[in-house]
């Protein structure tokens, strides 16, 4: 039993900022399906992460985004990020972690570790393909529209701001609509929005591979503004690309689904917080781990506090 526990312990990370995927209170068997893909005598690099296809054929976004662009963008760029990530991760402590976990760990509060670029770009591109659909564009409705109008004044103002963020991200990067419901001040990670602005929709832009997961936001929508995303179709005319994306490609259904999930997770987190606070008040012994909220470590075989 003890052996099993410590084995589990050595695989876990205290990353409360991920909120609900890793309950902040304790880390029982965190990932029962942790994939041990490396066999002892294996000489084969097993692909831990797979290149997922976009949820539509490569020509389905024409004429707004050409098949040629998808072939290169997904078929070469995205594929290369995934392949290189697998090579970087194999045989390291990162192996078997979920993509999101790798991103948080290798972001390392801004002091980026080597696997970050490939991991984050792999995630970003999955998220990007799913943010679009054939016959997309138009306007959202329901809760999402309400929140947009509440936080940006109007849908039109939101569009203006989002387009401006995308157009002014200098060099390579991304623009995002995200749901901000983080509680923690993520030290040294340059959280772009102040803590007062909570449970709100925010627009943020990020350079290169950075994404809002590292600021503990819930991303809802993204546009890739690396030149490779638009150069074949629009050359230098990034603003035109952005307009076409907003008017013809955005899948508001997907954004809506993501928002619902984000709100649910934020609520779960709040409940966790409540419960923990109540227990502390009642003087119940709390898990030592919570004091090391922001500590990240690997292979801590000495840590027995997981044992519940």
């Amino acid at each position, binding site marked *: 039993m003890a052996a099993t526990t410590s084995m589990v312990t050595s695989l876990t990370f205290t990353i409360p900022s991920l909120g609900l995927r890793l309950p902040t209170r304790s880390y029982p068997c965190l990932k029962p399906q942790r994939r041990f893909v490396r066999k002892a005598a294996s000489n084969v690099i097993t692909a831990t992460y797979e290149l997922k296809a976009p949820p539509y054929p490569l020509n389905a976004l024409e004429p707004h985004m050409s098949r040629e662009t998808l072939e290169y963008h997904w078929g070469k760029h995205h594929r290369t990020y995934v392949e290189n990530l697998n090579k970087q991760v194999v045989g390291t402590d990162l192996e078997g972690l979920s993509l999101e976990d790798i991103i948080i760990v290798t972001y390392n509060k801004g002091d980026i570790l080597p696997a970050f*670029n490939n991991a984050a770009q792999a995630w970003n591109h999955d998220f990007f393909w799913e943010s679009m659909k054939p016959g997309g564009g138009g306007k959202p409705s329901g809760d999402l529209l309400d929140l947009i109008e509440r936080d940006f004044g109007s849908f039109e103002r939101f569009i203006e701001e989002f387009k401006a963020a995308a157009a002014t991200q200098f060099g390579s990067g991304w623009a995002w609509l995200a749901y901000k419901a983080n509680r923690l001040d993520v030290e040294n990670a340059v959280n772009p929005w102040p803590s007062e602005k909570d449970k709100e929709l925010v627009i943020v832009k990020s350079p290169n591979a950075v994404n809002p997961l590292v600021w503990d936001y819930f991303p809802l929508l993204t546009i890739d503004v690396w030149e490779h995303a638009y150069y074949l179709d629009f050359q230098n005319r990034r603003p035109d690309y952005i307009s076409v994306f907003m008017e013809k490609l955005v899948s508001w259904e997907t954004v809506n689904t993501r928002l619902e999930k984000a709100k649910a997770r934020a609520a779960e987190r709040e409940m966790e917080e409540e419960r923990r606070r109540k227990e502390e008040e009642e003087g119940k012994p709390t898990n030592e781990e919570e004091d090391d909220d922001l500590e990240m470590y690997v292979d801590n075989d000495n840590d027995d506090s997981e044992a519940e």
Partner: protein
Amino acid sequence: MALRSSVTRRTLTLGLNSTMLLPLSRSLQTFSLPDLPYDYGALEPAISGEIMQLHHQKHHQTYITNYNKALEQLHEAIQKGDSSTVVKLQSAIKFNGGGHVNHSIFWKNLAPIREGGGEPPKASLGWAIDTHFGSLESLIQKMNAEGAALQGSGWVWLGVNKELKKLVIETTPNQDPLVTKGPHLVPLLGIDVWEHAYYLQYKNVRPDYLKNIWKVINWKYASEVYEKECA
């Protein structure tokens, strides 16, 4: 060229109504797109004419336009003593001014093959390269490795530290000029590795672009700069 800038200067001063009356304010210099010393298609097949035209007429021109605009706003803010605007404008000046600086060097770093493009450096620069890197091939390999590994957008440079008289290879992100990596660094040659510099022709295969660009690198210019700094 001179005519063009004086026209712009006049237009600019007319725009800033107050400047004509203030004897203390100098009129603002504006910048204009330098002509290429070769045709757009002259660097083929290493770099396509389509890329050269877009790169020069669109990208570089846009940096210049936005640089001029930022300078105009900066000029106004300085006159008004509006320090927060002065500070806020710094990134626009760095992006766009840097873009202008870097691309102006870049066009001189390239030459058609029949005009010496690709011809290896001789004299003092050739000797310095052999001494410092072992061989030209070794330098090229190092620069290509750095250029290929650069994440996102940026430049890879061969520079000289004019204090130490030493050659250096450096990369800079986005449009940061080489001097941001060290105040004594002088660029001899820079290779643009922003995707716009190669995408239409090489797509995602940046290493192929890096391999081929050496065929049109103008070592004569690099030598001139080197000799001036290390005479």
